[in-house]
Structures are given as structure tokens and as C-alpha cells.
């Protein structure tokens, strides 16, 4: 394994950590105060920093470090993660993702933005550090800390006690606080190549230190396991560097040891409960000798220490389990987690955590995508083979009661089951895409000055990986449109009697073998008058056209609406809905909109669960069997002689409900026959193609509708214009899948024959 491979793994893990980070922050944003959530967030940043350090990615390390410091304040309850704080943190998560991408793919990062965020993060951390260390630091700086806006509610109200008294009481302590550190390595620490001696030596550089080694746990020689850790150390350290500096020393060992850091300035009753070992007389004597300080300070200190103890207990208990837990949470889709996502209640969260912990025993493996694809191909062949076998048995065996038929039926069920389970391997939850959307929403909301809340539901709905990969782009466009055009400004919302914060709801669910994704906003809805007027202005509809509301709403998918400033005043951000529609159609999907004036719009996308199969209409053209993707077909009709009109030299139009539509003879375009077929003898498929134009494709007959497995033509041959791919029918013959867009383009006079050079060469 070379360095690049290791780096690749690091970036893969980074992606997982970033997803974990974002979902954790979003949970916090929903009011979750579970220490485990905070820990998960902290760990994510910490791991990225650790890995980045190993690869010398300095930008990433320095940003992650600042981020981590601030998160540590949250973790140690010194900073309350209020909405303002979380806003900064979510932005920081975005920048961290950018930096990670930049580190992997090159490219640039908005440096001004990351510097700005570093400042904001530092301000948050410092505002807090001041507050926390106010106990140890004299006077003056305490005032701004109290005034700092980030410090609010629960647990950390600034306390109005007198620093002066404190200082007067205990001047020596002010100068050099003494920390007591209990360091108990686990065997993992040594297994990972850390060395207690080195850590302690680093610690000694911070100040004046005395170490006591506790060897009580050391068993007799016959019971001693050479790879276990038995020693623990109790260190009393006089330093002015602060607790953070101490924790930094143990940074990379933190999860593999029990670490207690406490400030020895009171009787230290609280942490001792959590100590894994017996207090040593020497240390106790020091503590006992400490004179009592003012009551207010003690309370404050105890609170701190207690919180610290709780946190450390949580960390050490969860330390090892949490990684597994984390994986389980991302890898498994428990119903409880779904409900937790919606309700965000503490009860549901802990239920989810428990369930995730329970299912943590389910192991997962990373598999090369190629291997899965190969399996899928083989199963595809199996399905075709089975269909062929069935067909030939039916042809040769008229009285279909034989045991062969029974066996075949069972085989058919088995192959279907195998196909389903193989497809399930490729299926992935839409969660990563949805998570990306929350970032888009934040950015657009910032840009437009709107306040937006994104609610995602059903993010564990699974769909084929290729579909997920291609879903991000249209979804991004739609989210942008929803925030930019859909939602009103806060002022307008308030005026309309809505809350200032707009809501965008992104939902995914399975429905009859397809995935349905809904994007709803609670904005103003589509201004039908405006859309209608625009359509008339652009000659899309006649001025007196009688359109239903639904028809008007769907006009926005028309190519004529492709630029933003036609509907909204914000230019440059809008993306044509026709582009969205086209990319959804390219995925074999459909998109619809329904809108209620004043209540918002809902976009409903229905997509196939996989791109390996396709719903097609099997047709005959010049004795050849072709498959037309069902999604392209608007309607089919039997042309009557009276509806066919010749036009120009060799064009023909068909009149459909008083509008004329060019007739395209598929057999002629594909050169299957020399002259145009008589339209009256065939069937016309009304298709809608890129550019929004409708064409009537002439075919000889329709055989039926079928789900077909898509096969590549390029693998052994070459791309053929007008043909999207091939498939294999039940009789074992290959049928070509029509590329409707290029057929229509060819009918406009564009050439469809670039490969004739091959014939010429031959």
C-alpha cells in the first residue's frame, strides 16, 4: 500500500467524518444537548485534524485546530451552543469540507472566508476561555467576558462575585495554578505506538511537575500479560499555560486512556468519585492544606469540576464504543433514528443510540464498486437467460402443466429475488445528498438575507448509487430556486402572517418501485398571472389560451423560462427549470409541480430506483425491434390520413388537437428503409425532447411495454448516433434502445452519420 492509497482512505474517512460533523451540528441546532452528540462532532473534527497532520496538510490542520478548540469549549460546557454559535460552526464545517476537497483535488479555497471564520471561532473560544479562566485570572478582562454576547443561558450565567476578594485571598495560586492530572493509559495506547514516557516528558515542559506512578494494578508475574497496561500516573503540575495546553499534550492519546485534569484550587471532592484509582496521601495533603476560598468561587468551581467529571466519565465510557456507534449510526437505518430526526426529542435520540449500539454488532465491509457491478451484470445475464429458457420451454411444450414449467416458475422467482438483493447492494441512502442540500440552503439564505429552515425526511430512503450521484445537481438547482424565488423575504412573510423563517422541506420515500422526492417550500407559491403573461410574451402560449392552473404551473419547465430574472429580481442565481426537468428525465424520472398561492409550491420527482433497468415501449420499425424509453413518450396515437399534411419538399406534419407536429420516420432516420413509410399504416409516438419541442415518431407497430436491462453498446462496439444502448429481449435477441433526443435533433436536419468514415475506410 503506497502513500497515495493511504491518503485516499484518509479522504474517504474525511467524507464520513464531515457528514458526521454536519449531522451532529444540525442535531445540536435542533436543540439536542446530548453530550454524545457534542463528542461525536468533536471527534469528527479531531480525526480530520489528526489525519491531515499526518499528511502535512497544514491549511486543513490549522483550521481544524481552531475549530476543535472552539468545539472543546462546547464539549466542556464552557460555551453554550446557541443558534448564533451553531451558525458559525455550520459555516466552519462547510469551510472544513472545502479545505478537505481542496487538499484532495487541488483547487482553491475562499481564503478570506476561512480567515473570517477562524476569527469568529477564536472569538467564541476566547470569549469563553476568558469566562472560564476568570477564576484564575485577575480582574480586568472579566468585564468583556461578561459582556460577550455568546455567553447565554443555562449553567453559565456570568456570576457577579468579586475577583478582588479572590485575588486578595489567594495571590500565590493566581500566579501558578496547580493542576492535578490522572493519566491511566489503556493497552490500546501502547498498541497504537504512543509512549507514556514521551507524553509525560511533554507534560513536564509545561511547568513544574511532580509525578507519582501508581503500580497497584500490577499483577504478579504469572498473571502478567505483557501487552496490557497496568501503570497509571498521577501528576501534579504547576503551570500557567492552562488546561487546554495540558489536554493538547494528550491530544492523540485521549481516546486510549483515562485522563483527568483538574484544577487544584478547592477541596476537589467532586472529581475523586470518578477516579479509577486510590488517592495518594501526598496529593491529598496538598489539597487538604489549601485554604478555603470564598463560597461563590467554590460553588463555581464545583460546578465546573462536576461537569468536567460527568464529561470525562461520558468520554471514557463512550470512548471505545462511540466509534462503533458512530459507524452504526451512519451505516444502519433504524426506524428510531428516523423518528429522532423528525422529533429530535431526547428520548427518541437515546432510543436511536441504543438501537444503533445494538446493531453495532452487524459488521459492514467496504467493497470495490467494480466487484458489485460485475455481480450485477452476471445477475442481469441470469435474468435474461432465465427469460429465454422460459420462452423456449413454452414454445416447445404446449400443455403447460409439466414439472418443467413448475421448476421454471420457481427459477423465475429465485432469479427475481437474486436480482433484487443484488440491486440492494448498490442501493445507498440519499442522506449524503440531502446533507449537501443543507449547506446549499445556508449559503443561499445568507446571500439572499432570508431566514430558512431545511427539514429533511426519509433521508435513509435507498436508491441506486448512480441515481444518487446524478441527483445532486438538479436538486441543488431546485433548492436554490426554492430559497431564492419560492420563499419571500422575512418582511413580506411577516406581513403575510407567516413566521419570518421560511421552511423548505425535502422528503424522500419509496412508492411503487420508484423513489419519490418532494421539495416543498412555504413561500408565496407560483404567481400564475405573471407566469402566464411571460409565456404569452415569449410566444409559448396563445394570448387567449385556456389553461388550467396545473398547466400554467408546468409552464415553468418550459425552455422559454430558462433565465432567472424573468421571474425574480435576483439575477444570476436562477437556473432554468427546463434544465432540471431534462436531467430528471435523463435519469428516467418525471417531475411535477403543484402550487398554492400564498402557501408555497411542491415539486414532486419520481425516479427509478436503478439505472440498470429501464421502462420501455417495445416497437417494430422495418422488421427491427426497438425500445423507446417510456419517460420520453407523452402519448401514442394512430394517425388518420386526414391528419397528415405534407410540408415543404419531404416534411410531413401531423395535426394533433389543432396544433401541428413534425412527423419523424424512425426507420428512415436510422436508415432501416430507403423511403418514408406510410404514416397511416403505423403508430405515432408523441415524444418530448430536449429543447421542449414535440415530435411524432413514426413506428410500424407497438409490441408492448416492458422493463428491460440496459446493455452497453460501446463495450464491444462503438457509440451509434440515435441509439442510447442495447438490451436483450426474452427471445434472446438484441434490441436497440432509441436515443430520442438525437433522433429528434437529426430530424431537424442535423447529421446522424459521423461514422460513415468507417464504411469508407472499409
Amino acid at each position, binding site marked *: 500500500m503506497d502513500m497515495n492509497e493511504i491518503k485516499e482512505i484518509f479522504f474517504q474517512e474525511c467524507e464520513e467524518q464531515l457528514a458526521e460533523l454536519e449531522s451532529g451540528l444540525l442535531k445540536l441546532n435542533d436543540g439536542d444537548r446530548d453530550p454524545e452528540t457534542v463528542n461525536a462532532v468533536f471527534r469528527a473534527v479531531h480525526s480530520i485534524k489528526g489525519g491531515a497532520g499526518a499528511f502535512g496538510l497544514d491549511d486543513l490542520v490549522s483550521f481544524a485546530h481552531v475549530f476543535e478548540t472552539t468545539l472543546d469549549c462546547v464539549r466542556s460546557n464552557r460555551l453554550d451552543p446557541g443558534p448564533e454559535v451553531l451558525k458559525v460552526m455550520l459555516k466552519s464545517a462547510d469551510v472544513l469540507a472545502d479545505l478537505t476537497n481542496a487538499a484532495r483535488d487541488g483547487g482553491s479555497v475562499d481564503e478570506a472566508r476561512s480567515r473570517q471564520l477562524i476569527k469568529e471561532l477564536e472569538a467564541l473560544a476566547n470569549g469563553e476561555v476568558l469566562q472560564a479562566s476568570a477564576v484564575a485570572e485577575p480582574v480586568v478582562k472579566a468585564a468583556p467576558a461578561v459582556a460577550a454576547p455568546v455567553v447565554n443561558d443555562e449553567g453559565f450565567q456570568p456570576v457577579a462575585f468579586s475577583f478582588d476578594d479572590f485575588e486578595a485571598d489567594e495571590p500565590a495560586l493566581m500566579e501558578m495554578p496547580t493542576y492535578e492530572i490522572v493519566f491511566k493509559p489503556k493497552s490500546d495506547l501502547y498498541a497504537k505506538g504512543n509512549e507514556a514516557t514521551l507524553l509525560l516528558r511533554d507534560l513536564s515542559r509545561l511547568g513544574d511537575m511532580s509525578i507519582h506512578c501508581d503500580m497497584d494494578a500490577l499483577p504478579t508475574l504469572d498473571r502478567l500479560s505483557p501487552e496490557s497496561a497496568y501503570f497509571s500516573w498521577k501528576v501534579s503540575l504547576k503551570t500557567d499555560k492552562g488546561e487546554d495546553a495540558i489536554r493538547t499534550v494528550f491530544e492523540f492519546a485521549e481516546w486510549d486512556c483515562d485522563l483527568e485534569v483538574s484544577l487544584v484550587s478547592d477541596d476537589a471532592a467532586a472529581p475523586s468519585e470518578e477516579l479509577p484509582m486510590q488517592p495518594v496521601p501526598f496529593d491529598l495533603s496538598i489539597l487538604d492544606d489549601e485554604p478555603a476560598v470564598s463560597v461563590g468561587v467554590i460553588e463555581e468551581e464545583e460546578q465546573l469540576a462536576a461537569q468536567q467529571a460527568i464529561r470525562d466519565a461520558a468520554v471514557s465510557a463512550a470512548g471505545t464504543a462511540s466509534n462503533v456507534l458512530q459507524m452504526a449510526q451512519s451505516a444502519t437505518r433504524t426506524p428510531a433514528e428516523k423518528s429522532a430526526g423528525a422529533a429530535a426529542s431526547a428520548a427518541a435520540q437515546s432510543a436511536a443510540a441504543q438501537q444503533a449500539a445494538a446493531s453495532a454488532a452487524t459488521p459492514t465491509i467496504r467493497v470495490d464498486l467494480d466487484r458489485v457491478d460485475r455481480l450485477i*451484470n*452476471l445477475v*442481469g*445475464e441470469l435474468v*435474461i*437467460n432465465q427469460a429465454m429458457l422460459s420462452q423456449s420451454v413454452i414454445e416447445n411444450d404446449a400443455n403447460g402443466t409439466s414439472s418443467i414449467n413448475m421448476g421454471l416458475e420457481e427459477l423465475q422467482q429465485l432469479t427475481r429475488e437474486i436480482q433484487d438483493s443484488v440491486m440492494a447492494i448498490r442501493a445507498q441512502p440519499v442522506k449524503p445528498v440531502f446533507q449537501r442540500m443543507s449547506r446549499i440552503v445556508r449559503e443561499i439564505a445568507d446571500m439572499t438575507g432570508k431566514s430558512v429552515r431545511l427539514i429533511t425526511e426519509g433521508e435513509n430512503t435507498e436508491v441506486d448509487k448512480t441515481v444518487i450521484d446524478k441527483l445532486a445537481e438538479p436538486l441543488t438547482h431546485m433548492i436554490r430556486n426554492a430559497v431564492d424565488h419560492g420563499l419571500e423575504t422575512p418582511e413580506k412573510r411577516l406581513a403575510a402572517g407567516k413566521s419570518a423563517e421560511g421552511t423548505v422541506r425535502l422528503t424522500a420515500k419509496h412508492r411503487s418501485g420508484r423513489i419519490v422526492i418532494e421539495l416543498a417550500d412555504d413561500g408565496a407559491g407560483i404567481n400564475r398571472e405573471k407566469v402566464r403573461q411571460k409565456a404569452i410574451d415569449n410566444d409559448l402560449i396563445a394570448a387567449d389560451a385556456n389553461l388550467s392552473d396545473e398547466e400554467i404551473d408546468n409552464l415553468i419547465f418550459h425552455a422559454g423560462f430558462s433565465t432567472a430574472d424573468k421571474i425574480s429580481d435576483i439575477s444570476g442565481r436562477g437556473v432554468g427549470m427546463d434544465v432540471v426537468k431534462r436531467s430528471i428525465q435523463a435519469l428516467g424520472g418525471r417531475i411535477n409541480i403543484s402550487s398554492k398561492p400564498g402557501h408555497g409550491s411542491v415539486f414532486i420527482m419520481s425516479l427509478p430506483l436503478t439505472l440498470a433497468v429501464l421502462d420501455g415501449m417495445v416497437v417494430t420499425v422495418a422488421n*427491427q*425491434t426497438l425500445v423507446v424509453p417510456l419517460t420520453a413518450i407523452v402519448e401514442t396515437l394512430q394517425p388518420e390520413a386526414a391528419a397528415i399534411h405534407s410540408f415543404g419538399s419531404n416534411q410531413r406534419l401531423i395535426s394533433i388537437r389543432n396544433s401541428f407536429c413534425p412527423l419523424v420516420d424512425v426507420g428512415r*432516420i*436510422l*436508415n*432501416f428503409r430507403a423511403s418514408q413509410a406510410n404514416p397511416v399504416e403505423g403508430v405515432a409516438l408523441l415524444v418530448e425532447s430536449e429543447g421542449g419541442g414535440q415530435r411524432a415518431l413514426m413506428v410500424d407497430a407497438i409490441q408492448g411495454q416492458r422493463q428491460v436491462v440496459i*446493455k*452497453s*453498446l460501446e*463495450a*464491444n*462496439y*462503438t457509440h*451509434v*448516433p*440515435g*441509439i442510447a444502448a*442495447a438490451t*436483450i429481449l426474452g427471445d*434472446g*435477441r*438484441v*434490441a*436497440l434502445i432509441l436515443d430520442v433526443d438525437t433522433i429528434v435533433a437529426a430530424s431537424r436536419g442535423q447529421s*446522424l*452519420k*459521423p*461514422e*460513415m*468514415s*468507417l*464504411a469508407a*475506410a*472499409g
Partner: protein
Amino acid sequence: MTYAAKNLTTDGRELIAFRVGDQEFCVNVMSVREIRGWTPATLMPHAPAYMLGIINLRGAVLPIVDLSARLGMKPAEPTVRHVIIVAQVKNQVVGLLVDAVSDILTITDDKIQPTPDVISSEFERSFARGVLAIEGRLICLIELQSVFPQEEREAA
């Protein structure tokens, strides 16, 4: 002894000989994946005349080339007696329609005579690697990669 080992140890090569029209040709056996009977092919639009279409080879799409037409002879009229040689050409698999497969020859390189310069066509000279005289028959050794030059495929 496996084929590969045999090839290595005897310093010779194995060739598959087949008949196209009234001529005999051969190709290296290592590039042949399988031999199968003719099944009707699906026509490809805008394909060159020698491209008979595509067939289903256990789930993969296999283009069929009429070798007779490709080598500049009379186009074949495929019947059930025709056979398809499934061959690997670079990273693609193609089917060659031939009249019949005659036998497998094991020869050493010195048996291969240079192509007589009576062949005038540049193209025919490019794929003919040499000729073999076996039991009074003339067998032309062809190079499949020259029959399907990569640049033409890319141009397509």
C-alpha cells in the same frame, strides 16, 4: 499440458484455420475466445456494410463482422451452417462470421512465409501477416488488430 505451456515450450504457435469463400485463413488461437453457430443479428443503423449487426452473447452485446466482406470479397449470406469466431481484439470482443472452421495448426515461426507481393491492395497487405503451405493448401495468416485498426474505431 495446457495450451499456454505448450506454446511456450515448443517454440511454436497454434493457429485456428477457417474458410471464407474459397480461401483459407488462420488466426492465433490465443485471441479466439469461442466458436459458435450463427444466430440472426440485430441490424445496426448506419453501420458499414460488413457489419452484420449485434447478437447476444450470454448477456453481452457482440458485434458481428462479415469477414468475407471485410476482406474485400463477396458479402456472405449467413446460414445456419456459418460459424462465428468470437475473438478478442485489443480490449473488445467481436464475432467474425466465417464459412467454416477447418482445423487447429501447430506450427513454428519458420513455416510462415512472407506475403507474396502480388497483393496490390494496401489494406490487404496490412492484415496479411504471411502465408502457410500446409498439405498443399495455402493458408493466409491474418492479424486481427489490423482487420480492426484502432484509429478507425475511434474515428467511428
